[in-house]
């Protein structure tokens, strides 16, 4: 068949696009899907099945397509598994079929078809036991899987949009359009989303009259009204999930990533009008290319103008097959026979239906009631249908045909209604399940609720829209429900599979994507899998990209038949989001690559970066670990920086310190409550090292508290704890100190901090800050500060040390930080990073989160003197618990290698002489000290073993290290503090 013959009455725009499929060039019209374009060229074989490599063509015309999954693009940038009906053809598009080698027509692995029997349900579990699964795993994995993962795939970034509306309508078929119009007319803000490129659903091909117009005219008029009422219409947009009160819809125009958008929609009312999906029928070789859903054939005809075959056999169990036959014939197709599983007495007897059947007969269509198609004949394409009288003994007959169109009714698309407490309820009218028990704010309407007759659908959709509008307080006039008449009631009589001998059941396909057959379902039942959820997992029924839309209910029907139970008793397997395949990139959102999480930067970030600072994320902050020097390793660079601070001096960026300004007449009392020692005793112009406890007595954080004025303090926190400490403070302010005269303000970013440490720090500051600061520099004692100005900006000069050296902190506004830093650098102070800071603080026995780890009390950390002051602060009472006094509680100690050379690392377990396997503590911090020329550490060790001089072993099996260590004072360096106080 050439394309010219296969197109009639297309609604596509004229024009020609060029694309390739498996290397061969084809033409398409703008708006064509890959499936429609290939079908227009007579191409039906579009892929092979995943397990048996059976030849397959498109079954559907939407994203539920289980067979025709294509790879798009050229290696290595290939996107696999895109349903052909969803892929919008663009000029130059490269398409490739999947699961075949070397070619689609001649696939070597299809010899597995011969083994269809032994590849049944549970095959892997039962077969590859000896010698072990690993023996076969490689081969099986190479054969398994849908398509091939791309070698490289830089998918374009998707957009995100957060929006809200009064009423979200999912689905723009007859019910959805009517509901949206009713809600919008009443004054509600409405968003309408539709997964297809166009609105209308089955109205696009159904013979319908609505309010005196054709269905297509009504769709156009309704869309115009919706737009004039401000309704936002999102086509190509499928509702995929809901989470945390937001409905998530995904737009992927053309079925390809690129221009895709993830919508997060907060809707006060949610109308589910997602229609229904036509169900297939199982019969022998019902997977042959040329077997297609009846509705799909109608869509290909109505929208794309594609004649999907020259000689058609229609196989269904309902009345609508006759209307469909008439439309297909009007589209130029030759319908050879209509095979209706219903007996003659079950056919509709109304005049119109009888007349329609009669006219079809008179046009040469054979109408066979009480019959079934029991097999499709042909290999790469259907060549004939084998037909048998149901329940009779008449011999079967064959009708030559190239297409078998099937339909056994419709399954409501109820996935979205089955979340948030919605329950699946059997619906006799559809022979499937609908979503009941909807929570407030959710309405299921139209075919999704089991309504299949147009008049009822329109009324129900209108009522849903009006009800949703009222619920959001939009009380305008919703207008009248449209009056429509379409295809007759289906009057379906349940029929799931054609009769077949048990030997042929392995060729009756239920889930085409996963090659699940009736034989597989029978095996699962025989092996004790009774529940539909277990059967699903054992057989893989409905677990592919189509998520059981075509085969799910059919499988449940067949299970019911095999078990001799009703479908209502069997139930339906649970559907889970996403209801529609979504590109992982879209789910990942915008935080990808280097921006996987937000990064905070200090005002000196660019300087560090430009001066070879090795910047690394620490919490949310990005900080320099060390500054690279030619020829030095990271460890050596840090050691050199620390050595320089001890011998001369250095500068470090401390802007990341958390800073909370607590102000008001009750600020001092509030801080007294939150800290182990009193803030109220701090004099203005002084600071104090203070410790916070949690309610359970564990140390939460430590830092300096500066008293700026009688009623104003700044509390510094560790860098990683700033946000947490703000929450901690605000929690107690709002719960136990509410409406008291105090305020808490985060001023972390309002102050940059430059630490100036080392013997030369004071002299350098004299030179840099100049004469106006000289008196202050000479006067300030340890832990004192003074405020002033430097070069027009605020400057707070604090004498405090985290290195054990004479040191100062310059707190300045961020705008002044770079100028001050560069001045200090030019004056001879080199920068040092976090690694050097770690060396300096371990030498001095200062604590960080390794020691303040949420499991240590102040008593564990050697702060008895602070506890003895007796401030009745938060957490203080629990320090008196007996458990905190036990001999096995940890205690902070210092460590050195026994031989003066050995290395031990943080994390190593410490064992005593009594047991080599039972640890008595662990190393919390360790550094190589340039001051002592050996490894030093801090550790938490059971109190009964903390006598100085005690010998322990630092065991580090992961790094194959066992080092004898000696317990020493945690203050390794300058125990009297002489250097700091100089």
């Amino acid at each position, binding site marked *: 068949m050439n394309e010219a013959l296969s197109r009639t009455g297309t609604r596509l725009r004229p024009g020609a696009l060029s694309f390739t499929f498996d290397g061969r060039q084809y033409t398409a019209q703008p708006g064509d899907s890959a499936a429609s374009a290939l079908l227009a060229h007579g191409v039906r074989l579009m892929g092979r099945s995943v397990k048996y490599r059976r030849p397959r063509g498109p079954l559907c015309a939407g994203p539920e397509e289980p067979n025709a999954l294509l790879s798009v693009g050229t290696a290595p940038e290939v996107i696999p598994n895109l349903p052909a009906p969803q892929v919008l053809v663009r000029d130059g598009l490269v398409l490739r079929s999947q699961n075949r080698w070397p070619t689609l027509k001649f696939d070597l692995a299809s010899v597995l078809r011969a083994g269809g029997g032994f590849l049944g349900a549970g095959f892997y579990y039962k077969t590859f036991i000896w010698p072990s699964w690993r023996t076969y795993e490689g081969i099986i994995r190479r054969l398994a899987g849908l398509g091939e993962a791309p070698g490289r795939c830089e998918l374009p*970034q998707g*957009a*995100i*949009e*957060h*929006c*809200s509306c009064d009423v979200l309508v999912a689905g723009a078929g007859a019910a959805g359009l009517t509901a949206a119009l009713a809600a919008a007319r009443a004054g509600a803000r409405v968003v309408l989303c539709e997964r297809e490129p166009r609105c209308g659903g089955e109205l696009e091909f159904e013979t319908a009259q609505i309010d005196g117009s054709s269905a297509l005219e009504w769709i156009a008029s309704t869309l115009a009204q919706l737009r004039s009422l401000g309704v936002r219409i*999102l*086509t*190509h947009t499928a509702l995929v999930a809901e989470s945390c009160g937001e409905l998530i819809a995904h737009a992927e*125009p053309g079925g390809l990533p690129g*221009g895709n*958008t993830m919508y*997060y929609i*907060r809707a006060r009312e949610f109308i589910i009008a997602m229609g229904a999906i036509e169900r297939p029928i199982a019969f022998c070789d019902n997977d042959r290319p040329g077997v297609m859903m009846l509705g799909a054939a109608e869509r290909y005809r109505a929208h794309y103008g594609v004649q999907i075959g020259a000689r058609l056999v229609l196989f269904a169990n309902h009345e609508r097959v006759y209307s469909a036959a008439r439309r297909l014939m009007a589209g130029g197709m030759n319908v050879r026979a209509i095979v209706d599983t219903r007996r003659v007495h079950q056919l509709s007897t109304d005049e119109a239906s009888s007349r329609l059947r009669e006219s079809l007969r008179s046009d040469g269509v054979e109408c066979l009631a009480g019959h079934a198609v029991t097999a499709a004949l042909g290999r790469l394409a259907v060549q004939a249908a084998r037909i048998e009288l149901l329940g009779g003994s008449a011999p079967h007959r064959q009708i030559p045909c190239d297409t078998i169109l099937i339909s056994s009714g419709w399954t409501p698309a109820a996935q979205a209604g089955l979340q948030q407490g919605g329950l699946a309820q059997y619906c006799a009218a559809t022979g499937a399940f609908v979503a009941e028990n909807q929570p407030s704010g959710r309405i299921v309407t139209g075919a999704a609720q089991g309504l299949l007759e147009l008049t009822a659908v329109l009324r129900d959709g209108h009522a849903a829209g009006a009800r949703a509008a009222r619920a959001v307080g939009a009380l305008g006039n919703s207008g009248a429900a449209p009056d429509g008449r379409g295809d007759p009631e289906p009057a379906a009589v349940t029929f799931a599979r054609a009769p077949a001998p048990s030997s042929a059941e392995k060729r009756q396909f239920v889930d085409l994507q996963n090659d699940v057959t009736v034989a597989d379902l029978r095996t699962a039942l025989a092996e004790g899998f009774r529940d539909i959820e277990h059967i699903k997992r054992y057989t893989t029924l409905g677990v592919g990209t189509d998520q059981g839309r075509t085969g799910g209910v059919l499988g449940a029907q067949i299970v019911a038949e095999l078990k001799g139970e009703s479908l209502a008793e069997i139930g339906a397997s649970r559907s889970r989001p996403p209801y529609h395949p979504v590109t992982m990139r879209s789910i990942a959102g*915008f*935080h990808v690559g280097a*921006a996987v*999480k*937000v*990064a*905070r*930067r*200090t*005002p000196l*970030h660019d300087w560090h970066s430009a001066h070879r600072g090795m910047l690394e994320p620490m919490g949310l*902050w990005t900080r320099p670990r060390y500054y690279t020097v030619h020829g030095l390793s990271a460890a050596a660079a840090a050691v050199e920086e620390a050595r320089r601070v001890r011998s001369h001096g250095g500068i470090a960026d401390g802007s990341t310190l958390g800073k909370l*300004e607590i*102000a*008001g*007449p009750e600020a001092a009392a509030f801080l007294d409550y939150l800290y182990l020692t009193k803030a109220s005793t701090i004099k203005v112009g002084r600071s104090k090292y203070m410790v916070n406890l949690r309610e359970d007595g564990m140390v939460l954080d430590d830092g300096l508290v500066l008293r700026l004025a009688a*009623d*104003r303090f700044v509390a510094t926190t560790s860098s990683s704890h700033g946000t947490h400490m703000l929450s901690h403070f605000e929690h107690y302010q709002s719960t136990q100190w*509410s*409406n*008291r*005269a*105090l*305020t*808490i*303000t*985060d*001023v*972390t*970013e*309002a*102050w*940059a901090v430059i630490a100036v440490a080392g013997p030369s720090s004071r002299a350098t500051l004299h030179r840099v800050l100049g004469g106006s600061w000289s008196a202050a520099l000479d006067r300030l004692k340890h832990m004192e500060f003074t405020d002033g100005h430097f070069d027009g900006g*605020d400057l707070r000069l604090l004498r405090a040390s985290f290195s054990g050296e004479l040191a100062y902190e310059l707190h300045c*506004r*961020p*705008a002044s930080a770079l100028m001050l830093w560069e001045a200090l650098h030019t004056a001879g102070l080199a920068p040092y990073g976090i690694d050097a800071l770690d060396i300096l603080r371990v030498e001095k026995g200062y604590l960080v989160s390794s020691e303040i780890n949420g499991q240590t009390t102040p008593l564990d950390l050697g702060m008895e003197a602070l506890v003895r002051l007796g401030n009745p602060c938060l957490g203080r009472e629990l320090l008196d618990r007996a458990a905190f006094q036990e001999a096995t509680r940890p205690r902070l100690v210092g460590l050195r290698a026994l031989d003066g050379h050995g290395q031990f690392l943080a994390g190593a377990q410490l064992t005593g002489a009594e047991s080599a396997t039972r640890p008595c503590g662990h190393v919390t911090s360790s550094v190589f000290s340039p001051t002592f020329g050996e490894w030093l550490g801090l550790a938490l060790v059971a109190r009964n073993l903390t006598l100085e001089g005690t010998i322990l072993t630092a065991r580090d099996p992961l790094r194959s290290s066992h080092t004898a260590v000696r317990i020493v004072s945690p203050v390794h360096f300058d125990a009297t503090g002489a250097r700091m106080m100089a």
Partner: protein
Amino acid sequence: MREEKFDCRIDRLPAGCALEFVFYAWPTADPGLSDWSGTAGAIRRDPAQRTLMLHFAPGRWLVPEPSVETRAMLNKAALAGLGMIVEVTGKYDQLSITGPGATRLLACGIDIEAILQARECAALTLFDCPAVLARAPEGYAIWVQSSYAADFVTTAERFRALLEGGS
């Protein structure tokens, strides 16, 4: 489907002095506070529609570039023992996002229309960055905490490029 050309501009504005004023308790019944907006989310503007004070959280105001009159007003409240002034110069970087696409750009991070439906400003997390957002004549003014500003702008620019490309 977007049909119009996406148009949006992101500008970093020069940093200036900024204050926060925090009431000890809110709402307060002090009759001398008629100049203070009672509802969080309100913005006090001058006759030229320049932003004077943003009531961005209950009882908490951001005062960018405080004028003499505004300072006097804050001092009066502070002296009356109602709250405290805290200087936060450098805490925020001010940005403006303007143009017809401004709302769509910000909607990449949050449902901006819903947030500002009944208020003029709000403290929120936008593109994972803490910020104060306010309506401005041709778009939005944003005070983003300065340590986050670089990432905020990077993300916003990335979305702008994406939306421009997708139009």
